[in-house]
Every structure is written in structure tokens, then in C-alpha cells.
């Protein structure tokens, strides 16, 4: 089968899936949401899965593992029992605050905790649909798919075609949400390859402030595909800290797209921690649509075996006087492969842009690979844009220095790795979150 044939086979499979899905919707087929789905799915069908041949943006990441599997919609299969103890183990339990748990993309109310923090509404789409909360229903239909570019990002369109459940977070004007909002997406064990489509919509009003954590966990060695989309809208002077923790199963493919639209004077920061999963693609595409915006993207990957992670970012500076800062680091062992693809766009209007991008990788094995594609597209003259990329191994001199002071080689290496990653961890304000992530990082080394 050649690529084109495969693609069309694949479309057929997803079309079949889509039909089954549609049938399951019964009455809600007539809802406005469903027309959004249909349109999005058409956009996906039109282009199919991107390949290195058809898209420069997928030059180094091939979705072959997805293409060859006939994934079934996990939500239709009976999911394994997941106990509250399991959840406590998987979640960052000590983090107080709201916690929404999704099993295979479906909201699990019994496992969730909603604390009713002032100024915050956290709802699952499924819950909302059953309720008479018109205000939030309107909010959902008004904002969903408003920020993600479905023409450009075909896999995000696939998610949108199947969007059913998800998390809606609204932070009211002026509200400062003290405790983090944790979204735990668990993929349960199935005997067949499954797919789930988690979805998050975050609307932060003027002068609001909150921390949101997306935590993706897989259990076992089953094959599955998490196809997730998060949309975030930051109104003027909103301040959002976002974290994404990826500890998917060893045979899992994770595609995550985060579309962010920022208004004037808002501050957005996201940090992703790619710790496990067979193939991970993280897309973050902030649009800086106002003046004096701050945008920070951080990422840390620690990969081993045949893991593959692709961090893909596009920061679009549309207005003057904004600052963006990007720092992605990776440590690659065994036969793992790290890809970084970061674009900074500075539109003609965006004078006085200050954009910094940096990508650093350490290769720890003969068979590990790294590809980097740091790009600048600049149409304004009074800007400061820099990007830097370095690839190398552990500094041998430093290693020797430590060993000469009596530190064992293994320990010395760990120390140097820790030093390498330190600036990513430093960005985490919450002590517990930082320590948990850092401990996990050390375990992986």
C-alpha cells in the first residue's frame, strides 16, 4: 500500500468511527456543537494525517504508529475500574484545589473534587449538557473552536470532530484562584487499541489569575492514542500559569495541541514535562493579540528506549511591545529521538517585539537522535529576536572535575543533568509541584 492509499484507508476508518460516534449521539445531533464537529471532521478528512512528505511541520515526526492501528473510540468500550486510590497515586494528590478526572476522555464525577473556589467555575462538558446552566452552555458554544486553527492543524481538527466531553474552566474578572486546578486524564487499559479525545477550554477574564495543570497518565502497555486539544483565552491583564505533565503508557501516542490567544497586558506561561509515552507531539501556538503581553514556553523531555518527542511551537507576535521567551531542553537516552520545531513570527505591526528562543539537547547514547528547527519570520524592523540551539553531550571536563573530587560517575552525571534542567524547574512556583516533578525527573535519569 502506498502512502496515498494508506491515507485514504485511514480516512475511511475514521469516517466509520465518526458515523458510529454520530449514531451514539442520538438527539444531540441537532445541537450547534454537532455542526462544529461535522465541520471540523471535514477539515480533517480533507487533509488526512500529515506526513513528512506533505507537511514541513511534520518533517521529523511520522504518525506511522497511529496510521497502522485501527483505534476504537475508548469511550465506547467498558473502561477498567479505576479506584480513588489509583487516582490519588496518579494525581499530584497533595495539591489542594479542584481536581477533574477524566477516564479515556470521559468525566468521572466520583473521582473528581470540586471545591468551589471563589471566582472559578469548573465544569465538565457532559455535566454541563445535563444541567440547566445556560450561562456556561453559552460560554462553551461561544468559545469552543474559536481559538484553534483547524485548517492549519489537521490533527486538532480530528479531536474537534469527536469532541464530546472535556473541561470548561472560567475564571471571573479580577479573581485570583489560589489553589491550582488539576485536570487528570487517565487512559485505562483495553485489550484493543483505543483512542480518546480530551478537550479543555479555559476562559480567563480581565485581571484574573490561576494555575492550571494538565496531567496525562497511562497505566499499562496497551496501545492507545490520546488526541487532546486545549484552547485558552486570556482577556486583558489575565495571568495564567499552565503545566502539562505527560506520563503516558509505554505504547501510547500522545498528540496535544494548545491554542492560546492572549489580550493586552496578559501573562501566559506553560511548561511541559515529557516523561513517558512512545510518541509525543506537543503543539503550542500562542497568538499575542495585544500590546505588552508576556508569553513563556518551557519544555523538558527525558526520553529513553525508542521514545520520540516533538515539541512544536509557533509564537505569533501581532502587536507591538510584547515579550516572548521560549526554553526547551531535552535529555535523550537509548534510541530515543527529540525534535524541536519553534517558529517566532513578528508581524509588520509588532514593533518593539522582544522574542527569545532557546533549545538545548543532551545526547546520552550512540543511538539517540536530535532534530531542531528554530525559525524566525520577521516583518518588523525594530525588534529584538534571537534564537539559539545547542546539541551536545555532558561536559566531560565538568564530569571529570566532579569525579576528581570523589563523586561517583553516576552521581556526577546526575548532578550535571540536574543542573542542566534547573532553569525549567526554577519556573515552578509551587514547591510541592516542583519537587514532585524534579523527583520524577531524577528517577528517569
Amino acid at each position, binding site marked *: 500500500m502506498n502512502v496515498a492509499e494508506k491515507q485514504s484507508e485511514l480516512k475511511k476508518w475514521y469516517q466509520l468511527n465518526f458515523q458510529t460516534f454520530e449514531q451514539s449521539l442520538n438527539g444531540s445531533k441537532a445541537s450547534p456543537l454537532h455542526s462544529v464537529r461535522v465541520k471540523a471532521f471535514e477539515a480533517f478528512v480533507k487533509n488526512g494525517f500529515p506526513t513528512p512528505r506533505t507537511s514541513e511541520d511534520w518533517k521529523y515526526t511520522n504518525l506511522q504508529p497511529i496510521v497502522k492501528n485501527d483505534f476504537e473510540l475508548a469511550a465506547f468500550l467498558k473502561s477498567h475500574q479505576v479506584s480513588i486510590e489509583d487516582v490519588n497515586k496518579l494525581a499530584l494528590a497533595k495539591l489542594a484545589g479542584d481536581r477533574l478526572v477524566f477516564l479515556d476522555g470521559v468525566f468521572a464525577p466520583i473521582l473528581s473534587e470540586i471545591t468551589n473556589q471563589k471566582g472559578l467555575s469548573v465544569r465538565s462538558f457532559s455535566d454541563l449538557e445535563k444541567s440547566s446552566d445556560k450561562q456556561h452552555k453559552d460560554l462553551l458554544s461561544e468559545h469552543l473552536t474559536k481559538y484553534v486553527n483547524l485548517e492549519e492543524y489537521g490533527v486538532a481538527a480530528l479531536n474537534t470532530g469527536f469532541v464530546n466531553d472535556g473541561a470548561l474552566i472560567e475564571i471571573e474578572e479580577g479573581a485570583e484562584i489560589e489553589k491550582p486546578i488539576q485536570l487528570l486524564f487517565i487512559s485505562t487499559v483495553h485489550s484493543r487499541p483505543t483512542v480518546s479525545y480530551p478537550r479543555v477550554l479555559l476562559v480567563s477574564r480581565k485581571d484574573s489569575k490561576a494555575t492550571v495543570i494538565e496531567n496525562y497518565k497511562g497505566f499499562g502497555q496497551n496501545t492507545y492514542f490520546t488526541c487532546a486539544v486545549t484552547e485558552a483565552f486570556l482577556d486583558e491583564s489575565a495571568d495564567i500559569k499552565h503545566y502539562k505533565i505527560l506520563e503516558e503508557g509505554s505504547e501510547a501516542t500522545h498528540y496535544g495541541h494548545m491554542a492560546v490567544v492572549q489580550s493586552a497586558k496578559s501573562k501566559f506561561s506553560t511548561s511541559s514535562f515529557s516523561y513517558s509515552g512512545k510518541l509525543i507531539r506537543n503543539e503550542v501556538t500562542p497568538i499575542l493579540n495585544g500590546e505588552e503581553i508576556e508569553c513563556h514556553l518551557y519544555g523538558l523531555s527525558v526520553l529513553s528506549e525508542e521514545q520520540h518527542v516533538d515539541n512544536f511551537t509557533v509564537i505569533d507576535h501581532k502587536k507591538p511591545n510584547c515579550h516572548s521567551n521560549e526554553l526547551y531542553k531535552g535529555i535523550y537516552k537509548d534510541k530515543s529521538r527529540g525534535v524541536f520545531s519553534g517558529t517566532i513570527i513578528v508581524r509588520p505591526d509588532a514593533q518593539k517585539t522582544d522574542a527569545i528562543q532557546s533549545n538545548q539537547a543532551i545526547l546520552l547514547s550512540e543511538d539517540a*537522535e536530535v*532534530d531542531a528547527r*528554530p525559525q524566525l519570520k520577521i516583518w518588523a*524592523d525594530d525588534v529584538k529576536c*534571537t534564537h539559539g540551539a*545547542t546539541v551536545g553531550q555532558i561536559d566531560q571536563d565538568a564530569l571529570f572535575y566532579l569525579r576528581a573530587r570523589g563523586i561517583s560517575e553516576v552521581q556526577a552525571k546526575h548532578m550535571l543533568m540536574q543542573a542542566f534542567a534547573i532553569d525549567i524547574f526554577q519556573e515552578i512556583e509551587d514547591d510541592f509541584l516542583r519537587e514532585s516533578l524534579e523527583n520524577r525527573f531524577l528517577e528517569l535519569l
Partner: protein
Amino acid sequence: MSTDNETIENFTKQEYKWGFYSDIDSDTVPPGLNEDVIRFISAKKEEPEWLLEWRLKAFRKWQEMEEPSWAFVKYPAVDYQDISYYSAPKKKPELQSLDQVDPELLKTYEKLGIPLVEQKRLAGVAVDAVFDSVSVITTYKEQLEEHGIIFCSFSEAVKNHPELVRKYLGSVVPYTDNFFATLNSAVFTDGSFVYIPPGVRCPLELSTYFRINAQNTGQFERTLIIADKGSYVSYMEGCTAPMRDENQLHAAVVELIAHEDAEIKYSTIQNWYPGDKEGKGGIYNFVTKRGICDGANSKISWTQVETGSAVTWKYPSCILKGENSVGEFYSVAITNNMQQADTGTKMIHIGRNTKSTIVSKGISAGRGQNTYRGQVKVMKSAENARNFSQCDSMLMGDKCGAHTFPYIEIRNPSAKVEHEATTSKIGEDQIFYCNQRGLSTEDAVSMLVHGFCKEIFKELPMEFAVEARQLLAISLEDSVG
């Protein structure tokens, strides 16, 4: 006096002797490209059968290929059937004196500081001016022959050194390489050939400039340079003044081969017609340049100053195969008015301890679009490979664009690869500071741009450096209000 006359006479004769031009002076194939045209070209050039076959293979391949569209440039489609692929060398109208030359052109020459004699030669003014060059050429020829250096037109090389041509042609840029290179392989008409024997350090900077019959081979030029073991050559390519060539499409191929301990330094000043301020006319410069450091400790160094052409698509590259081999790429690209450039390099590290350095300076002014596109690839076998890349852009005005697209692909953990890119502009405070010291704004800009490009200019041979500097000033005229 009589010797002078003889030299002139020899020169005129030589021109006929060297080229195949005399007997085909009236021949021009009608526009269009098919196998017959290729056979015609090959026959006219009295080429051996293998070369014709090679051309035909390339042509058949080319027919299956699609024009690449990934570059960050836009231009109207080229009608490849509307180009005449063979015509006798264009006879420029013989002018009697400089008074008959386009004053615009003369002004440019003056700014470049080209001596009067040279001005005449470039403008195509007859006889007397050429005289000096002729004797110069003859002297150089003799000197080179003494060292066993072969420096001739490609056609001559095919006739006189077929074994060398056959061995190396297409060995670095295969006829299947890319759309433009494949087209060139099918239809190339002439170019330069250089062979430096083992252990020889070429005593001169070789240049197309000195090779009289290199004129008018621009459109599908083919250059092949071989530096045998332990040899050294510095080659300069370029028109030294803006020749107003009306050819729309230039698709040249350059292949460099550096054997063990050999070094090739290739410098280019590209100053083809950029089109007018509205973007009318101008050359499409789609060039494939690649060198292989085949032997251990070999070195290839590309230096380019790209100021001309409407569209430039060009990535002089190095395949670093030999152990400890070194590849370098130094580039200044300027786009003003409606010019677009997508240029950069590829450094493919194969051998152990291979090193590469990339320094690219892009300057965008007017509505120019300047793109750096480069690849650094470290293969598994390339233990201890090192690369350092630096891509700096300078923007002048708010209607131009500067884009940087590096690709870094690392397959060996011992590699050390660093890439840096920055963007800057000429600050108003900098201009004011210069003004306050009595310098005009124009001089201030030229000084600052030159400062920005300094690292590259110091890589150029002396003869080129002065000229590059002048060219820069001319290219950026009217770019700052």
C-alpha cells in the same frame, strides 16, 4: 609595437580557436526543450557519446520532476519551453567609445572604482581596452601551465581532459539532484574547469574574470574544480560590475572536489540584475553549489556576497566525508526593493572530527525578503563533529522581512552543535552619533552595514573585498530615508 599587434591578432584568433563558436555563429535553436535540442547542443559541442547519454538521462529525469516550492520566495512561473537553450554567444554591439555606453552603467562603474580600461572592457567597447587583459591572460596561462594546473572552459576540458571530466562530473551533484541541477545537467552549455595536481599550491587567485571566453555562458553554467592531494586553490566567481543580462533564468551547477589535505576556497560576488524598484525584470538565480571534502584533512570554504538577482535560491554546501575535514560558509545577502533571497548552506558531517562553520549575514531593505535556510547534519559515523552557526539579520525599514530556517539533525552523541541567530536594525541613535561626527547618513549606513558584514568580508580575497564593500553601498542606495 609589432609585438603588441601580434598579441591582439593572437587574441582574436584564439577566441575562435578556443570556442566552438566560429562555425555556429548563426545558430540559435528556437525556444523549447526536447531530446532533439539536447542532441543538437551536444553535437554542436562535439561531445563524446557518454556525455550526450548523461545529458539525456538528466533530461528524462527532469521531465518527471516538479519545480520546488518550499523556498520562501514568490515569482511568476517560468515557462521552460519558452527559453532558447542554445544560442551562439551573444555578440554585444561593438561600441566605439565610452560615450556610447549607458551613462547609468558608467556611473555604477565609477562608484565601484573600476579603472577606465576595465570599464571599456565590461561595457563591450572594442579592441584597445581589451589589449591589457589579453597580455595578462597569456602570462597567467603560461604560469599556470608550468605548475601543471588545468584551467580552461568546460568545453575545452571535455575535449582535452575527458577522463577527468568523466570521472568527476556529477560526482558531487548527481544529475538527479534537484529540479534546477537536473535541468542544468541536460542543457549546460559551458563553464569553467579547474584541476590542481597533487601538492601544487595555485599561485594565483583563479577567476572567470581572467578567462575571456567565459562570457555569455552564464545561463546554464557548469563549474568543476578538483583539488588533488595536498593542493590549494582559491577561485573567484562573479561579474565585477552589474552586467545587465536579460536572461530571466540562471541555473548553474558548481561541483568541488577536495582530496586528502587539499583546500578549495570559493568566493562569489553575485551581482546580476535585480530588476527595477517595482520588481520588473531581474534574474532568477537558482544555483546548486556543492563540494565534497573527500579526503582526510581537506577543506572547502564558500564565501559569497549576494547583492543582485530578483530571486536567489542558492545553498553552497559541503559534504564532509574525510576525517578532520573542514567546511565553511560565509555569506552576505542583501535584498532591497523587491528582491527575494532564500540562501544558506548544508553541512553534512560524515567523517570523524569534521568541523563546520556557518556565518550568515542577511540584510533586508525596501520590500526585500531575505531568508537563511541551512542544514547541519551529523551522521552516526561522524564522531566528534563540531558545528558553529551564526545567522544575523539586519532590517532596514518596516516593509522588508528577515527569516531564518535552520535544520539541525544530530545522529551522534559526541557532536557539538551550536546555532545562534539575532535580528537587529540600524538604530537612529547610531546614525545620529555618526552625523554628529560629521558623517552623512548615507556614509553612516554604509559604515554600519559594513561593520555588520565584517566577518564575511575578511574571508574574501583582497581583490573582491574592496569591490564587495562598494557593491554593498550601491545596493543599499535609497534604502534609508
